């Protein structure tokens, strides 16, 4: 086997098919987007070369900035929520839950398999205020918190938070399963040894478990980041980007620019921005992984 892998020619033959495929479905569209971004209008309709004009437009566009801020907040909240709660749940499965382990795990994982639109409809009902109070408002009302009864999705101050909560609820089961798998992989004698040395509770997590979980945490963060940076379907299903622009993400804005404003060129610029954010974010997260390897 070593002989085969030592042969550069053979390696090239193995890599080539995948490389061609990758180039065709990833690299070509990126270059294509860049080419499109130099034009104004929509292909076949007022399609004119306009140089870098679309790029200058980016800096003047307030809607772009708003969408970027919304997207940024969403990524920060949802990433911390999904990964953090996923980890807590995994620790709960591992150390705290004695009975009905698999039942609870199934329940927590259940939202992952639900279609996004169905979840959106479900939460729209939970947050509902008119014509009838939804679950949340009825609970608040019956507990006597009348002043907390509000249009959760109908005001800019709470809509994004409600959306984040929904997406955390949906995905935390997925991350808990990943972390639980990683926890099972940790040899129990390490934990036992730590316990004999008098390490328990938070210290056990801080000094023993978290260093061992670091690689999987990085992976989970990359998953969560790439899932949240393209925020689209859950927001579309729950709020449609509203009220106003309060929950409109970059991808939603890009879609709007391309397909309802018919400005495919400018939308391509937005697509490239999203692409750069993806690359930038993933490599920043990757840095943690690198530093952990160097530690070893």
């Amino acid at each position, binding site marked *: 086997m070593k*002989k*085969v892998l030592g*042969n550069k020619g*053979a390696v090239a*033959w*193995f890599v*080539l*098919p995948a490389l061609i495929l990758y180039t065709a479905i990833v690299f070509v569209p990126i270059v294509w987007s860049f080419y499109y971004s130099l034009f104004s209008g*929509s292909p*076949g*309709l007022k399609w004119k070369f306009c140089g870098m004009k679309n790029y200058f437009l980016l800096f003047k566009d307030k809607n772009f900035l708003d969408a970027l801020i919304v997207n940024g907040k969403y990524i920060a909240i949802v990433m911390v929520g999904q990964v953090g709660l996923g980890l807590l749940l995994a620790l709960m499965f591992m150390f705290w839950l004695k009975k009905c382990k698999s039942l609870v795990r199934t329940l927590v994982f259940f939202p992952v398999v639900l279609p996004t639109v169905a979840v959106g409809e479900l939460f*729209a009902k939970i*947050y*509902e*205020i*008119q*014509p009838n109070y939804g679950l949340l408002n009825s609970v608040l009302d019956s507990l006597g918190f009348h002043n907390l*009864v*509000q*249009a*959760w*999705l*109908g*005001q*800019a101050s709470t809509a994004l938070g409600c959306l984040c909560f929904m997406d955390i609820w949906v995905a935390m089961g997925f991350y808990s399963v990943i972390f639980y798998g990683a926890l099972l992989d940790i040899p129990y004698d390490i934990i036992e040894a730590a316990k004999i040395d008098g390490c328990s509770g938070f210290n056990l997590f801080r000094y023993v478990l978290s260093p061992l979980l670091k690689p999987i945490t990085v992976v989970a963060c990359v998953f969560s980041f790439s899932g949240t940076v393209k925020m689209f379907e859950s927001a579309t299903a729950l709020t*449609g*980007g*509203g*009220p*106003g*622009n309060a929950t409109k993400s970059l991808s939603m804005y890009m879609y*709007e620019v391309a*397909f*309802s*404003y*018919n400005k495919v060129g400018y939308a391509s610029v937005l697509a490239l921005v999203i692409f750069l954010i993806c690359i930038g974010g993933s490599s920043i997260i990757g840095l943690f992984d690198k530093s952990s390897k160097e530690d070893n």
Partner: protein
Amino acid sequence: MKRKVLSVFLTAAMAVGMLAGCGSSASTASGSQSASTEAVTASSTETASVTSETSATAATGDTDPQMKKKIKILSIWAEDNDNGVLINQICNDYKKVNPNFDYEYEYVASDDLKQKIATLAASNDLPDVFVYESGKPIVDLINADQIVDISDVLKKYNCADYIEPSAESLLTTLSQTDDLYDLPLGLNIEGFWYNKALFQKAGVEVPSTWDEFDSALKKLKDAGIQPLACGGADKWGATRLINAYTVRTLGPDAMKKAADGDAKYTDAGYVAAAQKLQDWANAGYFGQGVTTVDMNTAGTMLMTGKAAMFYNGSWFTSNLNDTSANAAGADGIGFFNIPVQDESISGADSYSMNCGNILCLGKAKYDDATGWFVKYFVEHMGDTAMTVQGSVKGYTYTADTSKATGYTQLVLQEMAKAKSSFTWYEATMGSEVSTVAQENVQSLLNGDMSAQDYMKSIQDASDSQAE
């Protein structure tokens, strides 16, 4: 060595497999492409032969010369739905008149319609007959000289009288032309639907001026009734209310003036109308969380007595006629036109009207055979729509309306009162401006944006579109 040979062999096998995979898919693609090219060539030769026949027998009398043609119809309704039923029925009826006629009915989702037409227009390949949107989109097609002047067709085939004058004036206003460039597929009036029982309970009379309307709102609210239901989640439900006040205070051409640059959206009158909407929201007339309510829910609230008034078009009768949904019963809901501020600016006989989606004829494919079909269509659409669906489509009809339900009758009576019409808020706006107007209306309702800022955002979008 043996291993090396084996590895090379395996690699080669894999690469060949891969290429074979690509090859087969490529050949299918090119196969289907050539098939479609064939179809195109076939149809184009057919059209060519038709044109030659046509020029030989260019008759314009009243008897159909039974020309041979297969027309293509692009529609946003499936064959068994809404206008799709009517179009197909008329086509099939026309086949009996002209056995040489045939048609191909293509369905496209309404969201994709504009994109599809834009692409076809760019390649000069618009279908013979297609559904489109009135207002700004059709103006672009007229300017590009892509669609047929329908007034000419109607004159030539002597059937102009079959179009309702109100529909015609509406369509020409929307296309900003003297001639008609599209055929109506509906004729709707809009106004306030109200729950009679709730009005009676609060002791409110049907308001005819904005002052009366405001006091009615207050009276209803004081009686513990939510005065207005509005589909703020669907956005247009809210902008229609601004439009209602704008037109009654500034005149029916107010929105066009602002769109043409003869006035600014930020002028005091326009801001006042937006302010009106915000005042109502602040006073709690829409209840809580109006931006989360969609038009359907708002309609249900009216019918189930949870709100007293609801602004919507005459298409709402289909919900009202549904006895399982309409808890108010066959006579529980009434209708009144938008209240008047000053008779000299916009009178009570002026209604907000629209023709829904419209039909256009592609210029490149138009010939006399299509002309004769259009004649048949125009002459029979009114009666077909009334007998099949009990609906008014903007054509004259002779069918009996006495069997229609109370709500349909109500709409017909109101329509008969209409002397002039005006259009909706976004009719004169391009897609960017209209998106801004609709999205920000939610912020206006919430109080996140002042009326001044709201109108300014529309003006800004309009300015940047003009650049």
